[in-house]
């Protein structure tokens, strides 16, 4: 499961010295389609990503390509990778932009350059993710780092269910807060889990992280939020853990019953959660604060209404790349973003049939893969015709 640290963090002198292969790209497209198919467009808040992104996808991708061309001549993948707390942001940018590349009629050479750029960052960042979660793992820590964490953390034995339940509530509240701050689609800018790291025959180690909890440029009131960075370290037994390309976590067993040890770290400080009532009570106070803040934040988000939610979507997407754009001498909320905001203003979201899962899965996958494939000139304007040919005319036959 692990690779040597020097292998994981090896520095490349330039980008794209090992571009994505056709085989890797085929796997990526397959995994991407599976990730989409696991979702339910009806439950996406505030709207289905793929019905909104194309409204300004051309503007988005042109700014991103501009930034990449500047950055890749001056910085190594390692330096760029350091800008991101985890790997979910680069990973999801790569897959979301496969649509934008087609919306923006980007030429083949630039599409290739774009994909290889993010591919390099992903490989730099993640120890075992060449196929973007093919193995459904999210491993960012080296073997040595895990050993160190195991040694230095003050572990709390999970003797009864009280701690596990409170930890579950903390995770839930912070995940909910992530949705309120960054909406469903960009919640990964806040929360990301790493693992599973196998530590013994039947035990796994999972690291749950929440960062960027005070995006005051988008939500000024978050300046009053008490915490900046929260991590929960969990050891589970007799359980498999997986994470998909969309940063969705899956546990094969109950996360409370199968918890063995846990450690909670808030802003670098370990919080005692040992099994005595005083500590449990302190933990409950934290849980209550987080849950109430998450609820309040989402009420604010919902109250904003359709037009503001569209604007927020554009801002939230840009905000993830605040430091990245700065590296290229651009501002995350500069004139390029203002142009995007103008573009989406007073526009309804799209209502394309491409995401109607009642069509046979095989046909949808075939269609999606052709649309997303950066090797093909299947521009967005051609999708309707392609859909008719690949999916619609054969509905119900399979």
């Amino acid at each position, binding site marked *: 499961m692990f690779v040597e640290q020097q292998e994981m963090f090896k520095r490349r002198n330039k980008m794209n010295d090992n571009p994505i292969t056709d085989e890797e790209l085929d796997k990526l497209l397959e995994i991407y389609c599976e990730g989409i198919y696991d*979702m339910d467009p009806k439950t996406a808040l505030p709207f289905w990503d793929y019905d909104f992104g194309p409204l300004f996808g051309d503007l988005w991708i042109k700014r991103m390509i501009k930034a990449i061309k500047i950055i890749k001549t001056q910085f190594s993948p390692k330096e760029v990778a350091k800008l991101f707390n985890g790997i979910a942001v680069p990973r999801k940018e790569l897959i979301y932009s496969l649509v934008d590349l087609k919306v923006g009629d980007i030429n083949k050479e630039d599409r290739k350059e774009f994909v290889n750029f993010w591919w390099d960052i992903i490989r730099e960042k993640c120890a075992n993710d060449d196929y973007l979660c093919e193995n459904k793992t999210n491993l960012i820590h080296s073997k040595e780092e895990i050993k160190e964490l195991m040694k230095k953390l003050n572990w709390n034995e999970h003797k009864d269910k009280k701690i*596990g339940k409170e930890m579950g509530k903390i995770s839930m509240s912070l*995940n*909910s807060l992530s949705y309120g701050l960054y909406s469903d689609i960009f919640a990964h800018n806040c929360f990301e889990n790493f693992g599973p790291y196998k530590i013994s025959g039947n035990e796994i180690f999972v690291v749950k992280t929440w960062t960027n909890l005070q995006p005051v440029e988008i939500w000024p009131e978050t300046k009053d939020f008490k915490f900046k960075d929260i991590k929960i370290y969990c050891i589970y037994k007799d359980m498999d853990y997986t994470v998909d390309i969309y940063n969705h*976590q899956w546990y094969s*067993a109950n996360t409370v019953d199968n918890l063995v040890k846990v450690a909670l770290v808030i802003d670098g400080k370990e919080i005692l959660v040992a099994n005595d009532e005083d500590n449990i009570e302190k933990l409950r106070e934290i849980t209550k604060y987080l849950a109430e803040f998450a*609820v309040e934040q989402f009420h604010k988000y919902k109250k904003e209404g359709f037009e503001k939610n569209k604007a927020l979507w554009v801002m939230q997407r840009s905000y993830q790349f605040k430091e990245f754009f700065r590296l290229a001498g651009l501002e995350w909320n500069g004139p390029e973003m203002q142009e995007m905001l103008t573009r989406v203003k007073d526009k309804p979201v799209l209502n394309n049939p491409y995401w109607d899962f009642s069509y046979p899965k095989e046909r949808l996958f075939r269609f999606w893969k052709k649309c997303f494939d950066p090797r093909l000139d299947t521009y967005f304007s051609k999708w309707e015709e392609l859909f008719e040919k690949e999916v619609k005319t054969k509905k119900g036959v399979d």
Partner: protein
Amino acid sequence: MRIIKKGKGVSQGQATGKVKIIKNFEDFSKVQEGDVLVTKMTDPTMTVIMGKANAIITETGGMACHAAIVARELGIPCVVAFESATETLKEGSTIHVCGTTGNVQKEE
């Protein structure tokens, strides 16, 4: 126990509790510790009441919906894609939810 209906199990485990149907914000106050929260779909405004629930049932959603993700973290069973759950299930009745199979059962 009689199976009322089968949905899609998206968070492992089993639990029993009283049905509390949530159609709007005013219904939030009905939820007590150990209840089964039944709604069309969850969102983060339900964070506090989801923390009280023994199980969650929703009419829409899949493996990656908000209800599923949250339930897995809480370690409680969750069944999604249970069509017309807010109409089919009776407020206050005691049901058994299996988040592994997706079965929702009622005592005969």
